[in-house]
Protein backbone atom coordinates (compact mmCIF):
# COMPACT_ATOMS: atom_id res chain seq x y z
CA UNK A 1 0.00 0.00 0.00
CA UNK A 2 2.85 2.37 0.69
CA UNK A 3 4.12 1.92 -2.83
CA UNK A 4 0.77 2.87 -4.24
CA UNK A 5 0.64 5.85 -1.92
CA UNK A 6 4.02 7.10 -3.09
CA UNK A 7 3.04 6.61 -6.68
CA UNK A 8 -0.02 8.66 -5.90
CA UNK A 9 2.04 11.49 -4.45
CA UNK A 10 4.33 11.54 -7.47
CA UNK A 11 1.46 11.46 -9.90
CA UNK A 12 -0.47 14.11 -8.02
CA UNK A 13 2.51 16.43 -8.01
CA UNK A 14 3.14 16.13 -11.72
CA UNK A 15 -0.51 16.29 -12.54
CA UNK A 16 -1.06 19.48 -10.64
CA UNK A 17 2.04 21.03 -12.14
CA UNK A 18 1.18 20.20 -15.73
CA UNK A 19 -2.58 20.54 -15.82
CA UNK A 20 -3.36 16.87 -16.21
CA UNK A 21 -5.21 14.60 -13.87
CA UNK A 22 -2.30 12.24 -13.53
CA UNK A 23 -4.05 9.41 -15.30
CA UNK A 24 -1.56 9.37 -18.13
CA UNK A 25 1.18 8.82 -15.58
CA UNK A 26 -0.73 6.58 -13.24
CA UNK A 27 -2.01 4.02 -15.69
CA UNK A 28 1.36 3.13 -17.20
CA UNK A 29 2.91 3.11 -13.73
CA UNK A 30 0.29 0.79 -12.29
CA UNK A 31 0.15 -1.55 -15.24
CA UNK A 32 3.87 -1.44 -15.94
CA UNK A 33 5.43 -1.62 -12.48
CA UNK A 34 2.75 -3.26 -10.41
CA UNK A 35 1.16 -5.46 -13.02
CA UNK A 36 -2.31 -4.18 -12.31
CA UNK A 37 -4.81 -5.16 -15.03
CA UNK A 38 -5.58 -2.23 -17.24
CA UNK A 39 -9.25 -1.83 -16.47
CA UNK A 40 -8.51 -1.71 -12.76
CA UNK A 41 -5.80 0.83 -13.37
CA UNK A 42 -8.27 2.87 -15.36
CA UNK A 43 -10.71 2.81 -12.48
CA UNK A 44 -8.07 3.96 -10.00
CA UNK A 45 -6.90 6.58 -12.43
CA UNK A 46 -10.29 8.14 -12.85
CA UNK A 47 -10.51 8.67 -9.13
CA UNK A 48 -7.03 10.05 -9.10
CA UNK A 49 -8.05 12.58 -11.71
CA UNK A 50 -10.96 13.77 -9.63
CA UNK A 51 -8.67 14.09 -6.64
CA UNK A 52 -6.00 16.03 -8.51
CA UNK A 53 -8.57 18.24 -10.09
CA UNK A 54 -10.21 19.20 -6.84
CA UNK A 55 -6.98 19.65 -4.95
CA UNK A 56 -5.06 21.54 -7.61
CA UNK A 57 -8.19 23.30 -8.73
CA UNK A 58 -8.78 24.66 -5.28
CA UNK A 59 -5.32 26.18 -5.15
CA UNK A 60 -5.38 27.58 -8.68
CA UNK A 61 -8.87 29.00 -8.32
CA UNK A 62 -7.74 30.66 -5.13
CA UNK A 63 -4.91 32.29 -7.06
CA UNK A 64 -7.23 33.43 -9.81
CA UNK A 65 -5.36 31.48 -12.48
CA UNK A 66 -8.28 29.42 -13.74
CA UNK A 67 -10.54 30.78 -16.43
CA UNK A 68 -13.79 29.65 -14.88
CA UNK A 69 -16.09 30.82 -17.61
CA UNK A 70 -14.09 29.17 -20.36
CA UNK A 71 -13.95 26.01 -18.29
CA UNK A 72 -17.72 25.95 -17.92
CA UNK A 73 -18.20 26.33 -21.62
CA UNK A 74 -15.79 23.56 -22.48
CA UNK A 75 -17.17 21.29 -19.79
CA UNK A 76 -20.36 20.82 -21.74
CA UNK A 77 -18.32 19.27 -24.51
CA UNK A 78 -16.02 17.24 -22.31
CA UNK A 79 -18.74 15.70 -20.20
CA UNK A 80 -20.75 14.75 -23.26
CA UNK A 81 -17.60 13.12 -24.59
CA UNK A 82 -16.96 11.39 -21.28
CA UNK A 83 -20.40 9.87 -21.46
CA UNK A 84 -19.92 8.33 -24.88
CA UNK A 85 -16.35 7.34 -24.10
CA UNK A 86 -17.20 5.71 -20.81
CA UNK A 87 -19.93 3.60 -22.29
CA UNK A 88 -17.61 2.42 -25.04
CA UNK A 89 -14.80 1.64 -22.60
CA UNK A 90 -16.83 -0.85 -20.67
CA UNK A 91 -17.28 -2.83 -23.84
CA UNK A 92 -13.72 -2.64 -25.14
CA UNK A 93 -10.89 -5.19 -25.14
CA UNK A 94 -8.01 -4.34 -22.76
CA UNK A 95 -5.24 -4.67 -25.37
CA UNK A 96 -7.05 -2.38 -27.71
CA UNK A 97 -7.42 0.11 -24.91
CA UNK A 98 -3.71 0.10 -24.15
CA UNK A 99 -2.81 0.51 -27.80
CA UNK A 100 -5.20 3.37 -28.25
CA UNK A 101 -3.72 5.01 -25.22
CA UNK A 102 -0.20 4.85 -26.57
CA UNK A 103 -1.27 6.17 -29.95
CA UNK A 104 -3.02 9.13 -28.36
CA UNK A 105 0.01 10.01 -26.27
CA UNK A 106 2.21 10.07 -29.32
CA UNK A 107 -0.20 12.28 -31.20
CA UNK A 108 -0.30 14.79 -28.41
CA UNK A 109 3.48 14.78 -28.04
CA UNK A 110 3.87 15.50 -31.73
CA UNK A 111 1.33 18.29 -31.58
CA UNK A 112 3.16 19.98 -28.78
CA UNK A 113 6.44 19.81 -30.65
CA UNK A 114 4.93 21.70 -33.52
CA UNK A 115 4.31 24.64 -31.26
CA UNK A 116 6.66 27.54 -31.80
CA UNK A 117 8.80 28.86 -28.96
CA UNK A 118 6.61 30.50 -26.42
CA UNK A 119 2.83 30.52 -26.56
CA UNK A 120 0.50 31.45 -29.34
CA UNK A 121 -1.38 33.64 -26.93
CA UNK A 122 -1.26 37.33 -26.35
CA UNK A 123 -3.65 40.14 -25.94
CA UNK A 124 -7.37 40.44 -25.56
CA UNK A 125 -9.65 39.12 -28.24
CA UNK A 126 -12.92 40.47 -26.97
CA UNK A 127 -14.14 36.98 -26.21
CA UNK A 128 -14.00 35.74 -22.64
CA UNK A 129 -11.34 38.24 -21.69
CA UNK A 130 -9.76 37.79 -18.34
CA UNK A 131 -6.48 38.31 -16.53
CA UNK A 132 -4.29 36.85 -13.84
CA UNK A 133 -1.14 37.61 -11.92
CA UNK A 134 1.82 35.52 -12.97
CA UNK A 135 3.23 33.90 -9.81
CA UNK A 136 6.76 33.94 -11.14
CA UNK A 137 7.06 37.50 -12.36
CA UNK A 138 4.25 39.27 -10.59
CA UNK A 139 3.07 40.84 -13.83
CA UNK A 140 -0.60 41.10 -14.74
CA UNK A 141 -1.35 39.05 -17.83
CA UNK A 142 -4.46 39.80 -19.82
CA UNK A 143 -5.76 37.57 -22.55
CA UNK A 144 -8.85 36.56 -24.45
CA UNK A 145 -9.94 33.34 -26.05
CA UNK A 146 -9.89 32.32 -29.72
CA UNK A 147 -11.46 29.48 -31.68
CA UNK A 148 -14.05 28.68 -29.08
CA UNK A 149 -16.21 26.50 -31.31
CA UNK A 150 -13.38 24.38 -32.61
CA UNK A 151 -12.09 24.21 -29.08
CA UNK A 152 -15.41 22.75 -27.97
CA UNK A 153 -15.23 20.11 -30.66
CA UNK A 154 -11.73 19.16 -29.59
CA UNK A 155 -12.87 19.10 -25.99
CA UNK A 156 -15.53 16.61 -26.95
CA UNK A 157 -12.76 14.36 -28.21
CA UNK A 158 -10.84 14.95 -25.00
CA UNK A 159 -13.94 13.92 -23.08
CA UNK A 160 -14.18 10.72 -25.08
CA UNK A 161 -10.58 9.93 -24.24
CA UNK A 162 -11.37 10.55 -20.63
CA UNK A 163 -14.25 8.15 -20.56
CA UNK A 164 -12.42 5.63 -22.65
CA UNK A 165 -9.01 5.65 -21.03
CA UNK A 166 -9.66 6.82 -17.51
CA UNK A 167 -7.66 9.98 -17.90
CA UNK A 168 -8.82 13.48 -17.22
CA UNK A 169 -8.33 14.70 -20.71
CA UNK A 170 -5.98 17.39 -19.47
CA UNK A 171 -3.32 16.01 -21.76
CA UNK A 172 -5.41 17.26 -24.66
CA UNK A 173 -6.89 20.29 -22.93
CA UNK A 174 -3.63 21.96 -22.03
CA UNK A 175 -2.17 21.96 -25.55
CA UNK A 176 -5.60 22.76 -26.95
CA UNK A 177 -6.03 25.82 -24.80
CA UNK A 178 -2.49 27.12 -24.86
CA UNK A 179 -1.69 26.46 -28.50
CA UNK A 180 -5.03 26.75 -30.20
CA UNK A 181 -7.19 28.98 -28.09
CA UNK A 182 -4.79 31.69 -27.06
CA UNK A 183 -4.65 30.92 -23.38
CA UNK A 184 -1.25 31.41 -21.72
CA UNK A 185 0.28 28.12 -20.63
CA UNK A 186 0.01 28.75 -16.93
CA UNK A 187 -3.67 29.64 -17.15
CA UNK A 188 -4.27 26.71 -19.48
CA UNK A 189 -2.78 24.38 -16.91
CA UNK A 190 -4.85 25.85 -14.11
CA UNK A 191 -8.07 25.83 -16.12
CA UNK A 192 -7.49 22.31 -17.36
CA UNK A 193 -6.98 21.07 -13.82
CA UNK A 194 -10.22 22.70 -12.87
CA UNK A 195 -12.21 21.25 -15.75
CA UNK A 196 -11.13 17.68 -15.76
CA UNK A 197 -12.71 17.03 -12.39
CA UNK A 198 -16.19 17.18 -13.82
CA UNK A 199 -15.18 15.20 -16.88
CA UNK A 200 -13.67 12.52 -14.69
CA UNK A 201 -16.63 12.52 -12.32
CA UNK A 202 -18.87 11.65 -15.24
CA UNK A 203 -16.69 8.72 -16.20
CA UNK A 204 -16.19 7.78 -12.55
CA UNK A 205 -19.91 7.38 -12.06
CA UNK A 206 -20.03 4.87 -14.90
CA UNK A 207 -16.90 3.02 -13.81
CA UNK A 208 -17.81 2.86 -10.16
CA UNK A 209 -21.17 1.28 -10.73
CA UNK A 210 -19.75 -1.24 -13.13
CA UNK A 211 -17.33 -2.34 -10.44
CA UNK A 212 -14.11 -1.25 -12.10
CA UNK A 213 -12.90 0.59 -9.06
CA UNK A 214 -10.65 -1.48 -6.82
CA UNK A 215 -10.74 0.28 -3.47
CA UNK A 216 -7.56 -1.29 -2.25
CA UNK A 217 -5.66 0.47 -4.99
CA UNK A 218 -7.81 3.49 -5.59
CA UNK A 219 -7.87 4.82 -2.05
CA UNK A 220 -4.14 5.02 -1.29
CA UNK A 221 -3.67 6.46 -4.74
CA UNK A 222 -6.28 9.13 -4.16
CA UNK A 223 -4.79 10.11 -0.81
CA UNK A 224 -1.30 10.23 -2.25
CA UNK A 225 -2.56 12.36 -5.08
CA UNK A 226 -4.17 14.84 -2.71
CA UNK A 227 -0.83 15.35 -1.03
CA UNK A 228 1.06 15.45 -4.29
CA UNK A 229 -1.25 18.06 -5.76
CA UNK A 230 -0.40 20.43 -2.96
CA UNK A 231 3.27 20.04 -3.77
CA UNK A 232 2.70 20.28 -7.50
CA UNK A 233 0.77 23.52 -7.49
CA UNK A 234 3.44 25.22 -5.48
CA UNK A 235 6.29 23.81 -7.48
CA UNK A 236 4.63 24.69 -10.77
CA UNK A 237 4.44 28.31 -9.80
CA UNK A 238 8.21 28.45 -9.51
CA UNK A 239 8.94 26.93 -12.89
CA UNK A 240 9.12 28.82 -16.16
CA UNK A 241 6.57 28.26 -18.93
CA UNK A 242 9.09 26.85 -21.33
CA UNK A 243 10.42 24.35 -18.80
CA UNK A 244 6.89 23.18 -18.03
CA UNK A 245 6.26 22.50 -21.67
CA UNK A 246 9.47 20.53 -22.04
CA UNK A 247 8.72 18.34 -19.07
CA UNK A 248 5.25 17.76 -20.45
CA UNK A 249 6.51 16.61 -23.81
CA UNK A 250 9.19 14.38 -22.37
CA UNK A 251 6.66 12.67 -20.17
CA UNK A 252 4.29 12.11 -23.05
CA UNK A 253 6.89 10.38 -25.13
CA UNK A 254 8.09 8.15 -22.34
CA UNK A 255 4.65 6.94 -21.58
CA UNK A 256 3.54 6.64 -25.15
CA UNK A 257 6.33 4.19 -25.73
CA UNK A 258 5.50 2.35 -22.55
CA UNK A 259 1.85 1.92 -23.41
CA UNK A 260 2.50 0.80 -26.96
CA UNK A 261 4.96 -1.75 -25.63
CA UNK A 262 2.28 -3.02 -23.32
CA UNK A 263 -0.34 -3.23 -25.98
CA UNK A 264 1.82 -5.08 -28.41
CA UNK A 265 3.93 -7.35 -26.25
CA UNK A 266 1.85 -8.25 -23.23
Amino acid at each position, binding site marked *: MLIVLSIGILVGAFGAMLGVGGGILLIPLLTGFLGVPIKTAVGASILCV*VATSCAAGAVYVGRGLTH*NRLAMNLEVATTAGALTGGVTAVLMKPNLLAGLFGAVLICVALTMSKVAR*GDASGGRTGLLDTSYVDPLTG*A*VVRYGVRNLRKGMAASFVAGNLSGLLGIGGGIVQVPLMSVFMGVPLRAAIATSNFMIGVTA*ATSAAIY*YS*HGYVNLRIA*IPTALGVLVGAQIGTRLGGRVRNRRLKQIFQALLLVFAVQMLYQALWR
Partner: protein
Amino acid sequence: MRDEEQPEATDPMPAPSGADPIMHLAMGLPDLSATADEDQEIASGRDLNRMVHWMLIVGLMLSTAFLVTGLGLSAFYRMPVPERPSSPARVLAGVVEGSPASLLEIGILLLIATPVLRVVGSLALFVGTRNWRYAGATLLVLLILAAGLALGRS
Protein backbone atom coordinates in the same frame (compact mmCIF):
# COMPACT_ATOMS: atom_id res chain seq x y z
CA MET B 1 10.73 45.83 -11.22
CA ARG B 2 11.73 42.32 -12.09
CA ASP B 3 13.99 42.19 -15.07
CA GLU B 4 15.43 38.73 -14.95
CA GLU B 5 12.45 37.09 -16.55
CA GLN B 6 10.35 38.31 -19.43
CA PRO B 7 6.86 36.84 -19.11
CA GLU B 8 6.32 34.69 -22.13
CA ALA B 9 2.64 35.29 -22.56
CA THR B 10 1.58 38.90 -22.20
CA ASP B 11 -0.01 41.74 -24.07
CA PRO B 12 2.14 43.40 -26.71
CA MET B 13 2.79 46.03 -24.08
CA PRO B 14 3.00 44.28 -20.73
CA ALA B 15 2.10 45.97 -17.48
CA PRO B 16 4.96 46.29 -15.03
CA SER B 17 4.07 45.43 -11.48
CA GLY B 18 2.73 48.30 -9.45
CA ALA B 19 1.54 50.13 -12.59
CA ASP B 20 0.16 53.63 -12.40
CA PRO B 21 -2.60 54.16 -14.99
CA ILE B 22 -2.00 57.88 -15.29
CA MET B 23 1.70 57.40 -15.97
CA HIS B 24 0.80 54.87 -18.63
CA LEU B 25 -1.38 57.33 -20.43
CA ALA B 26 1.34 59.90 -20.18
CA MET B 27 3.85 57.52 -21.73
CA GLY B 28 1.48 56.76 -24.59
CA LEU B 29 0.70 53.25 -23.39
CA PRO B 30 -2.91 52.01 -23.50
CA ASP B 31 -5.08 52.61 -20.47
CA LEU B 32 -5.03 49.31 -18.65
CA SER B 33 -7.73 50.08 -16.14
CA ALA B 34 -10.97 48.15 -16.57
CA THR B 35 -14.17 49.66 -17.89
CA ALA B 36 -17.40 49.61 -15.90
CA ASP B 37 -18.69 46.53 -17.74
CA GLU B 38 -15.52 44.69 -17.06
CA ASP B 39 -15.73 45.70 -13.43
CA GLN B 40 -19.07 43.92 -13.31
CA GLU B 41 -17.61 40.86 -14.96
CA ILE B 42 -14.61 40.93 -12.72
CA ALA B 43 -16.71 41.35 -9.60
CA SER B 44 -19.02 38.46 -10.40
CA GLY B 45 -16.01 36.52 -11.54
CA ARG B 46 -14.53 36.98 -8.12
CA ASP B 47 -17.71 35.76 -6.46
CA LEU B 48 -17.70 32.70 -8.65
CA ASN B 49 -14.09 32.15 -7.82
CA ARG B 50 -14.67 32.38 -4.14
CA MET B 51 -17.62 30.03 -4.14
CA VAL B 52 -15.93 27.42 -6.30
CA HIS B 53 -12.86 27.62 -4.12
CA TRP B 54 -14.90 27.11 -1.00
CA MET B 55 -16.88 24.17 -2.38
CA LEU B 56 -13.81 22.35 -3.58
CA ILE B 57 -12.08 22.74 -0.24
CA VAL B 58 -15.10 21.62 1.77
CA GLY B 59 -15.65 18.64 -0.48
CA LEU B 60 -12.01 17.64 -0.25
CA MET B 61 -11.86 18.00 3.51
CA LEU B 62 -14.94 15.88 4.03
CA SER B 63 -13.79 13.23 1.62
CA THR B 64 -10.30 13.10 3.12
CA ALA B 65 -11.73 12.92 6.62
CA PHE B 66 -13.78 9.88 5.74
CA LEU B 67 -10.96 8.20 3.86
CA VAL B 68 -8.35 8.73 6.53
CA THR B 69 -10.71 7.71 9.32
CA GLY B 70 -11.72 4.65 7.38
CA LEU B 71 -8.13 3.66 6.76
CA GLY B 72 -7.19 4.30 10.35
CA LEU B 73 -10.06 2.22 11.65
CA SER B 74 -9.41 -0.62 9.27
CA ALA B 75 -5.77 -0.68 10.33
CA PHE B 76 -6.81 -0.53 14.00
CA TYR B 77 -9.30 -3.34 13.72
CA ARG B 78 -7.04 -5.28 11.36
CA MET B 79 -9.78 -5.36 8.77
CA PRO B 80 -8.60 -5.49 5.18
CA VAL B 81 -9.72 -2.83 2.73
CA PRO B 82 -12.34 -4.39 0.50
CA GLU B 83 -11.77 -4.59 -3.18
CA ARG B 84 -15.13 -3.96 -4.70
CA PRO B 85 -17.57 -1.32 -3.57
CA SER B 86 -21.00 -2.39 -2.33
CA SER B 87 -24.44 -1.02 -3.00
CA PRO B 88 -25.63 2.27 -1.43
CA ALA B 89 -28.00 0.54 0.94
CA ARG B 90 -25.25 -1.60 2.37
CA VAL B 91 -23.00 1.39 2.66
CA LEU B 92 -25.50 3.28 4.76
CA ALA B 93 -26.12 0.28 6.94
CA GLY B 94 -22.39 -0.09 7.32
CA VAL B 95 -21.95 3.48 8.50
CA VAL B 96 -24.41 2.91 11.28
CA GLU B 97 -22.38 -0.07 12.37
CA GLY B 98 -19.24 1.99 12.13
CA SER B 99 -17.71 -0.27 9.54
CA PRO B 100 -14.45 1.16 8.17
CA ALA B 101 -15.22 -0.17 4.71
CA SER B 102 -18.35 1.92 4.54
CA LEU B 103 -16.49 5.00 5.70
CA LEU B 104 -14.02 4.44 2.90
CA GLU B 105 -16.77 4.08 0.36
CA ILE B 106 -18.41 7.27 1.50
CA GLY B 107 -15.05 8.99 1.25
CA ILE B 108 -14.71 7.94 -2.34
CA LEU B 109 -18.28 8.87 -3.17
CA LEU B 110 -17.73 12.29 -1.64
CA LEU B 111 -14.62 12.69 -3.74
CA ILE B 112 -16.56 11.96 -6.90
CA ALA B 113 -19.34 14.22 -5.73
CA THR B 114 -17.12 17.24 -5.11
CA PRO B 115 -16.86 18.43 -8.72
CA VAL B 116 -20.57 17.76 -9.08
CA LEU B 117 -21.33 19.94 -6.09
CA ARG B 118 -19.11 22.58 -7.58
CA VAL B 119 -21.22 22.56 -10.71
CA VAL B 120 -24.42 22.74 -8.70
CA GLY B 121 -23.00 25.64 -6.74
CA SER B 122 -22.08 27.55 -9.87
CA LEU B 123 -25.53 26.89 -11.28
CA ALA B 124 -27.05 28.45 -8.20
CA LEU B 125 -24.74 31.43 -8.52
CA PHE B 126 -25.54 31.97 -12.18
CA VAL B 127 -29.27 31.73 -11.57
CA GLY B 128 -28.91 34.09 -8.67
CA THR B 129 -27.11 36.67 -10.78
CA ARG B 130 -29.48 36.02 -13.69
CA ASN B 131 -26.64 35.00 -15.93
CA TRP B 132 -28.82 32.78 -18.08
CA ARG B 133 -26.26 31.84 -20.64
CA TYR B 134 -23.92 30.26 -18.12
CA ALA B 135 -26.81 28.88 -16.10
CA GLY B 136 -27.88 27.03 -19.20
CA ALA B 137 -24.42 25.66 -19.86
CA THR B 138 -24.04 24.53 -16.26
CA LEU B 139 -27.46 22.91 -16.27
CA LEU B 140 -26.50 21.02 -19.40
CA VAL B 141 -23.40 19.70 -17.68
CA LEU B 142 -25.49 18.56 -14.74
CA LEU B 143 -27.89 16.74 -17.03
CA ILE B 144 -25.02 14.95 -18.70
CA LEU B 145 -23.67 13.99 -15.29
CA ALA B 146 -27.06 12.65 -14.32
CA ALA B 147 -27.14 10.64 -17.52
CA GLY B 148 -23.79 9.17 -16.55
CA LEU B 149 -25.16 8.12 -13.19
CA ALA B 150 -28.28 6.67 -14.77
CA LEU B 151 -26.20 4.70 -17.23
CA GLY B 152 -24.15 3.42 -14.37
CA ARG B 153 -27.07 1.99 -12.53
CA SER B 154 -28.35 -0.12 -15.39
